[in-house]
């Protein structure tokens, strides 16, 4: 027996804190602020929340969040591992919990002092003997110890195989930055760049340079999920979850899947995409806009291929045709993405995807957005969700 989750649940509230480089407050403070904003947006009270879901990486404990907010009894709480791979993974958990009646209203949140606190660019190291530390130990002695370095290894291989050049990486960075320039909440509000500026940035790990990399930010984001029925009575138009899936594909490692037959590929996202489409019967042609996880520019290309907007190796052509721009085939990362709005581990992406379906993005495309895609981080077990308007 297959239980369908399609159209059973809806995103009814979204919220972001201010994004900054130094929040001056605790991560717990950011978490509860983001959740309060999302609940206000929905017209709900903390007492209505009976489920919470976040990242294993998040430092804000569920019951501390619940106590701080004044939530009622929690009947569902869970966490999703693998960094940004958890972004839509939290939605996956919330949807299953609400669709099966384990909870009625679940909040997915993520809050981090990613610039003033622990910085991802600092790399991984440590003296504690855990499986995780031993895993990184295969790479740290050689100097391969940052997310940029791991992604660079896949990118070099992908460019070698597909013929993709830095022209396509520039187009991703440039389009995203232009979107941020219109977004007052974005770090790069009003700050566009040209090719000369892009080319003059410092090298990070070949072939990636500074503007191919996302920011490090302080901030929190939250989304509220409840039943589609209940969504109809709330303050905002509900945004239906049509399909949501995640996958850890065979023989993968966390960020370092260097041992599979081909490494210039993200089979876990291909599989999650296939599942999400199959759940609801939508096809790539039905998707009007997208928020594609953009910790680095090249990972946007691979995901376009995974979700069927073009064939393998053709994503460079797709973006160079203006495919990601507001008047293009798939307006993407209209908030400025993690490259240029803020890096909140992809939950700010779910916020933007919901806005696109509501019709309230600061860069709302002229065409009607009936369905939007939002994805999680890649290189790790990952996934994505297809959102749709309520009829």
């Amino acid at each position, binding site marked *: 027996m297959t239980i369908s989750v399609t159209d059973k649940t809806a995103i009814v509230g979204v919220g972001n804190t201010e994004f900054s*480089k*130094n929040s001056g407050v605790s991560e717990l403070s950011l978490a509860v602020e983001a959740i309060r904003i999302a609940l206000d947006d929905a017209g709900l009270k903390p007492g209505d929340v009976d489920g919470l879901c976040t990242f294993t990486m998040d430092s804000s404990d569920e019951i501390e969040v619940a106590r701080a907010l004044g939530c009622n009894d929690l009947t569902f709480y869970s966490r999703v591992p693998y960094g940004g791979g958890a972004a839509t993974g939290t939605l996956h958990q919330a949807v299953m919990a609400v669709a099966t009646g384990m909870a009625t209203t679940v909040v997915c949140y993520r809050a981090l002092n990613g*610039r*003033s606190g622990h910085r991802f*660019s*600092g*790399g991984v*190291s*440590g*003296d*504690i*003997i*855990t*499986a995780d*530390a*031993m*895993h*990184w*130990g*295969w*790479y*740290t*002695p*050689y*100097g*391969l*110890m*940052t997310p940029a*370095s791991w992604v*660079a*290894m*896949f*990118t*070099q*291989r992908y460019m*070698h195989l597909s013929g993709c050049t830095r022209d396509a990486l520039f187009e991703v960075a440039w389009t995203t930055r232009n979107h941020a320039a219109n977004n007052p909440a974005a770090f790069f509000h009003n700050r566009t760049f040209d090719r000369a500026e892009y080319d003059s940035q*410092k*090298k*990070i*790990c*070949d*072939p990636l340079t500074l503007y191919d990399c996302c920011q490090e930010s302080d901030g929190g984001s939250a989304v509220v999920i409840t039943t589609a029925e209940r969504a109809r009575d709330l303050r905002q138009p509900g945004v239906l979850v049509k399909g949501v899936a995640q996958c850890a594909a065979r*023989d993968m490692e966390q960020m*370092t899947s*260097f*041992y599979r037959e081909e*490494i*210039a590929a993200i089979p876990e996202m291909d599989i999650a995409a296939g599942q999400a489409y199959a759940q609801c019967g939508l096809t790539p042609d039905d998707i009007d806009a997208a928020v594609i996880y953009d910790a680095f520019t090249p990972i946007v290309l691979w995901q376009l291929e995974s979700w069927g907007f073009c064939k393998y190796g053709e994503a460079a052509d797709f973006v160079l045709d203006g495919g990601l721009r507001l008047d293009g085939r798939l307006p993407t990362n209209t908030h400025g993405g993690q490259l240029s709005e803020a890096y909140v581990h992809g939950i700010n992406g779910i916020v933007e995807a919901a806005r696109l379906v509501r019709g309230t993005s600061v860069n709302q495309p002229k065409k009607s957005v009936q369905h939007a895609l939002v994805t999680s981080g890649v290189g790790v077990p990952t996934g994505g969700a297809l959102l749709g308007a309520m009829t």
Partner: protein
Amino acid sequence: MTPEAKKDFEDRIQTYVGREISARKRGLDDVNKVMVRQWCEVMGDNNPVYTDEEFAARSSKGGLIAPPTMLQVWGMEGYSMANEPKEDLQRELHKIFDAQGYSGVLGTNCDLEFKRDLRPGDQVYAREVIESISEQKATSRGLGYFIETRTVFTDQSGEEVGNMKFRVLKFVPDQATQDAAAGAGESEKVAAPTRIHSPRGHDNAWWWEAVDQGKVLIQRCKSCQTLRHPPRPMCGECQSMEWDSIESALQGTVFSFTQIHYPKVPGYQYPLVCAVISLNEGTRLVANVVGCDPEDVTIGMPVKGVVEQVDEATMLPQFYPAG
């Protein structure tokens, strides 16, 4: 600092903004050929328009000029400053920072603007003011404040010839930096940083111990003979937990690679290339490619590995281009 103390501190430092560090004062030497020649020699700047009168006369400049980037030189104090630091407003401000623990100081950047060329005989006057102090910033050196000063350079007729914005960071040094500074005068030798080692546990210690002995091993399933790397406790093909290993000949090709530019980590030698190597035995291994220009590394390049001592405490497989 409590929020109240921080506010008092910030209010106090902000009173320095706009104040003069030094009033308009004539430089110790007017623009002259001797200092220009010495500066050009030290900097390795061979442009004859600074030193060759005939050339300069024929050039678009119509005569000798001083190198524009020498601008700051004409207002400098001279060597006495190193022994007897001047007690000026800037130093007074820095002491306020020092007292709150912001004892670190780092020049971060300097912007110069040039209004006209200076020629031998020109008099240069400098006036320096504290232009701004930032809000508190979290930097990689620690929490701190950026202080910007601006020096305006004018000539004998009072016309501006250029100006300089100089930015320094006053910061709270982290513990390691403080310890190093405290120990600097003592004889205790600070250990040179080495590469970050892998922790060693049940599943990987045997592999790293072999590397310490100069060998790279590949784990092999005793039941179905499948090779696997990195090591793990069970064979994914037949689920056997019995294993032994073979020694790799360390021959193979580059499957993918990246040159690491940023961040540069103490204990590592740059340029630094990391690569996924396809070993001829059939498994892959991440290691460094050395012995060639990083620009010459390509996917598919044949390589030969050797286990080497890369620093005082670290043995690692390193791969060289194979002829």
